[in-house]
């Protein structure tokens, strides 16, 4: 990785459109088999901080022995979104009693102003596939704006359309003004 404050390798990244987070990779998604063991590994060795995801946001009942976890891997706000650029936070969940292989995936934002099926169509056109079901398209924090795909190499991506309640004051919603 380049750490020097100079163009890499010969140009800066392209300009991205205003008020559009399509394609931004927002969270790493991990799975665990044993919550306490997983927590000790990452908290003790890497300094991560974890919070139990609310049931209303896809988590378990408070105090579950197999919680879904939002994790700060670096400086983060009370919303558990990053404060400074350059690191990703994590959503982790229990893999299930019968899991043999764990799935590592990411949550990527998609257009807020398009039906989710339009993104699914483009994924298929370029050699990817839909992984699981495409839900009934519905505004809000629930399943209606989420589905998963695979790229042409089999890598899994969770796609997420943010509800329209985004205020655009959020630090994570920044965009180039020039």
């Amino acid at each position: 990785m380049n750490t020097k404050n100079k163009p890499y390798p010969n140009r800066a990244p392209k300009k991205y459109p205003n008020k559009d987070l399509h394609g931004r990779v927002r969270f790493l998604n991990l799975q665990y088999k044993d919550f306490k063991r997983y927590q000790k590994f990452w908290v003790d060795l890497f300094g991560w901080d974890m919070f139990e995801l609310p049931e209303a946001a896809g988590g378990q009942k408070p105090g579950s022995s197999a919680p879904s976890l939002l994790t700060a891997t670096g400086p983060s706000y009370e919303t558990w979104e990053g404060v400074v650029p350059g690191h990703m936070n994590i959503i982790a969940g229990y893999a299930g009693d019968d899991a043999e292989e764990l799935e590592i995936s990411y949550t990527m934002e998609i257009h807020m102003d398009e039906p989710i099926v339009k993104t699914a169509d483009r994924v298929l056109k370029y050699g990817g596939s839909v992984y699981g079901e495409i839900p009934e398209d519905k505004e809000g924090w629930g399943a209606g704006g989420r589905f998963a795909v695979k790229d042409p190499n089999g890598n899994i991506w969770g796609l997420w359309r943010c509800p329209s309640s985004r205020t655009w004051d959020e630090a994570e919603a920044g965009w180039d003004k020039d």
Partner: protein
Amino acid sequence: MKYIYTCFKCGFPFALEEADCPENCPSCSASKDQYLVEPWNGSIEARRIHVDPPDPDPNWNKYDVSYHHPKHFPEKTRHGRVRRFVVEYDDAKVTKDFYADVFDWDIIPVECDQDKEDPLMFAATGPGSPNWEPKFASFGYGFLKPRKSDDTGKNPRFVVEVDNIDEMLGKVEGYGGKVLKAKYEVDGNLYAVLEDSEGNAFYIWQTPDDVTFDEPESQNFYKWERKPM
């Protein structure tokens, strides 16, 4: 009727029809009686109720996962930060076209692979600085990596930055993890491949000696102006 609800516990605002209002805050799990309510006025940006968020608690038990402000991460270290995603590929063109055309990424080969048929490629997924670091918080850049270059066969999918690789290699087995690949160098950077206690494979990358901690991505600010630049 539609309302704007602002959670008194965590400060999170959200707008919903009254019938769809959840019993617990979608951000922190606080019960519904913690919501402050105002009528929908056409835009959540124009809401009049704002709640100050909680501050980090320096005495918080690091294993307690109930709602709290994330801890205050220390200065002048990036140890533990997930810095990059990794996508293994079989066909460079197919993969580059997929991500560039479906998700609008910007993709270039890394410096040392400019002329290779199957290069290691760097992927920008949103606005960035000239040194190809993301310009805003809470999203990541990544690598597209030829699958044949992964000699662990475990498809490690993320890069965690660490202060010192040698120290980590000595500790990881004591926590139920494994060393999948010992320390190695790529283009002047030091990496190793580990597996966590659950079987997740990942890279560790040692903070290079030329990092000054003045870089935006090295900071640990907590009171940044929230409005986007």
